[in-house]
């Protein structure tokens, strides 16, 4: 463990980056999507402007959705804590089983509280959106947990070829799980505007919508950084390298996710379950096959 003042400074810098970068990366994503659509798109800082504008509006919650306001604020707290924890762990080289499990527990807690936001609303579209999310998470959270677990096991076999192959398969599986968990197309079925009129967030407006949007973007950053934290950071010797890998890697992966989602249509709950189930089953079988070889 690097417990130097440099690591502490880097942890603080990385945490600050994890708070500031996501809305800017979302701006990049909007630009990429616009370019694919043959549009100009909004400026890179537009998402920050959106958040600040929403934050300045009056707080209003319809009757029956009071609990949703509380869950949004809890979700924002967890998201900030998660980004700070991941930054600290990466800077200090805490990449063993214990820290990874701690990060994953926080990721699942954030997902659970997000599901609760929709469930807390009395709006039928929010209810349907939440159940879609629960439905999807039943498969995807298992896939995410399994991929992280397999990556941790794979690390024991490194530096043999088998170890690298096992890590490659589990990281690939993790990329799919992180992509799905980030709520982008084709897996944004809980919000699905044309079908559910924004679904889980339909009742949110003003500061609460800003908080929900911001925590969701931080969650996306964490999910883009997670594969690098689990599969790459343990092999990087210095705090500088780990922090740089997380910043550059998450930005690169965010961009890749943006391009992928822009070329796909929206899935359906049953189709999403089927396709994700097939991917995770095939990946697990491949992993076991290589392990036995």
């Amino acid at each position, binding site marked *: 463990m690097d417990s130097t003042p440099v690591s502490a400074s880097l942890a603080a810098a990385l945490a600050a980056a994890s708070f500031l970068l996501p809305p800017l990366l979302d701006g990049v994503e909007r630009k990429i999507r616009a370019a694919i659509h043959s549009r100009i798109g909004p400026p890179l800082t537009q998402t920050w402007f959106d958040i600040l504008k929403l934050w300045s509006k009056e707080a209003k919650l319809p009757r029956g959705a009071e609990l949703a306001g509380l869950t949004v604020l809890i979700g924002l707290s967890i998201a900030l804590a998660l980004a700070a924890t991941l930054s600290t762990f990466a800077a200090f080289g805490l990449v063993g089983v214990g820290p990874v499990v701690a990060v994953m527990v926080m990721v699942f807690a954030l997902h659970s509280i997000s599901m609760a936001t929709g469930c807390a609303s009395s709006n039928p579209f929010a209810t*349907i959106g939440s159940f879609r999310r629960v439905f999807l998470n039943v498969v995807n959270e298992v896939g995410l947990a399994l991929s992280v677990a397999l990556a941790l096991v794979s690390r024991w076999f490194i530096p043999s070829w088998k170890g690298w192959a096992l890590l490659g398969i589990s990281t690939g599986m993790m990329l799919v799980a992180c992509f799905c968990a980030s709520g982008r197309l084709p897996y944004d*079925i809980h919000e699905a505007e044309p*079908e559910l009129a924004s679904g889980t967030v339909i009742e949110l407006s003003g500061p609460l919508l800003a908080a929900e949007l911001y925590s969701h973007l931080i969650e996306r950053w964490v999910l883009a950084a997670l594969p690098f934290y689990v599969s790459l950071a343990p092999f990087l010797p210095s705090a500088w390298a780990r922090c740089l890998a997380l910043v550059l890697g998450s930005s690169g992966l965010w961009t890749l996710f943006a391009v992928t989602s*822009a070329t*796909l*249509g929206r*899935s359906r709950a049953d189709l999403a379950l089927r396709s994700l189930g097939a991917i995770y089953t095939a990946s697990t079988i491949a992993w076991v096959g290589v392990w036995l070889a």
Partner: protein
Amino acid sequence: MASVSEILKELEVELGTKVLNISRIEGGVIVSIEPSALPRASLILVSKGARHRMMVASDDREWLGRFSLYYIFGIDREGQNIVIHLPLDPDNPVAPSVVDIVRAVDWYELEAKDLMGIEFEGRYPVPRLIMPDTWPEGVYPLRKDVSVEELRRLSEPWISERIKLEEVEEIVRIPIGPYHPALHEPEYFELYVRGEKVVGARYVGFMVHRGIEKLAERMKYDQVPFIAERICGICGFVHSTSYCQAAEAALGIEVPERAEFIRSIMLEVERIHSHLLWVGVALHLLGYDTGFMHVWRIRERIMRVAEMLSGSRKTYGLNVLGGVRRDFDRDRLEKAVREAEEIGKEFAELVKISIDVPQVRARLRGTGILSPGEARAFAVVGPTARGSGIDIDVRKDFPYAAYKRIKPRVPVYSEGDNLARTLVRVDEVFESIELLKHLADQIPSGSIRAELPPSFEPYRIGIGAVEAPRGEVIHMVITGRYTPYRWRVRAPTYQNLIAVPTMLRGVELADAALTIASIDPCFSCTDRAIVIDLRRGSVERIPLRKIVSRWRP
């Protein structure tokens, strides 16, 4: 399918003295019968393969001292209509219901009851279709003795009541509308879902009834095409064409050949535009916004073609009674064809990419199914019918304008799902581009507008039908001396909408919006804005000039 003469012979034999009169009109015959003979006549027509196209109720008390019902059945193979005419008692207009025999007359009967006060015996009791529950008994808006001013006074109080009602939601139902991101017009579908599966659906519509037919009764013949074109913001030209055809048929006006070609060219441009718009919207509903953006980028090009030819990107304003207002320049026509060919190439590439997107294909295939039998029973039209294996197209079956000389190839798919309806429209874009080439190639020279007769003979009937992008549009005109005595418009959505609850049954909730959109519905495109203050109960209309001035930079 039997021929017109065979059906007429059978009607005469079977109905005997109940056949009151048989007279010929352009494109068909009118058979007047006693009301009691309607069920038997309907049975004969349906069993002989006649297709119900429209029903018109008319208040003929001023000139014939009675009400009339006109049931228009099409004999597609011959391109002829058999119009069953029922004279009804002026004081107690009652007709037998034939909804059990002709499923497609359901809404027509309800509409005739709501708007004209005609009772139908033997049908199951149903709530009002068009008029609200709070509408006073005995006031029938389309009767001649009810003025537009009276209707305006009566309608204002219930608008606010209706708005209040629509805000009431219950958890057990999934409301789609009256305003919803996927539906850009005021309509309301109530979906009953188990899990994500739609097990039932109900449609509530007619929230905005613009009373255009009534307004036209105070307009001169030549003014009506302008209001007709504003029935729809996407395919308005089909309405002005259809009205002109009906009025021209009734008044015996011969349209010059060049004008007919110009009408057909604009109709095909409009079809390309409408289908591109729809494909874009469908891809958006499927979450494939990349496809949506690119289709609409291509659509922009066809709007420029329309502008180059007519001077307007949309609502072309070309039609006048007896022809068209402006001629086409040869160079511009050639340029338009070249541009259309480029559009075709670009669209072909885009379709290949879009339909191959796994989520798009998976959600189109096997969803929103309307079987051929159901499609026939509801007498659906256009791509909705052709997607269910029913080979009908007005351009082919009842040729009009330049389609009398140039026959289109009509794509038909038998699967009846959302994919089939999509592919019909995609194929029709390419076919319209081909037609455009042929029309531009063969357009004759000559005048573009016929001389109108000095006076109009009243009480003559004309039927005009056009194959709109959404399906068959039919207009019927009964002439008056200075203005149309009765003008009836039947848009394709009216015919297709009744089948939507059937299509929705069994689909996943995620595909409900697309299934509704798959008939390419058009509810009331050119509504005017009103502001309702619920607390004070006041209704303020916003005139167009005020909206324009607000938007002016």
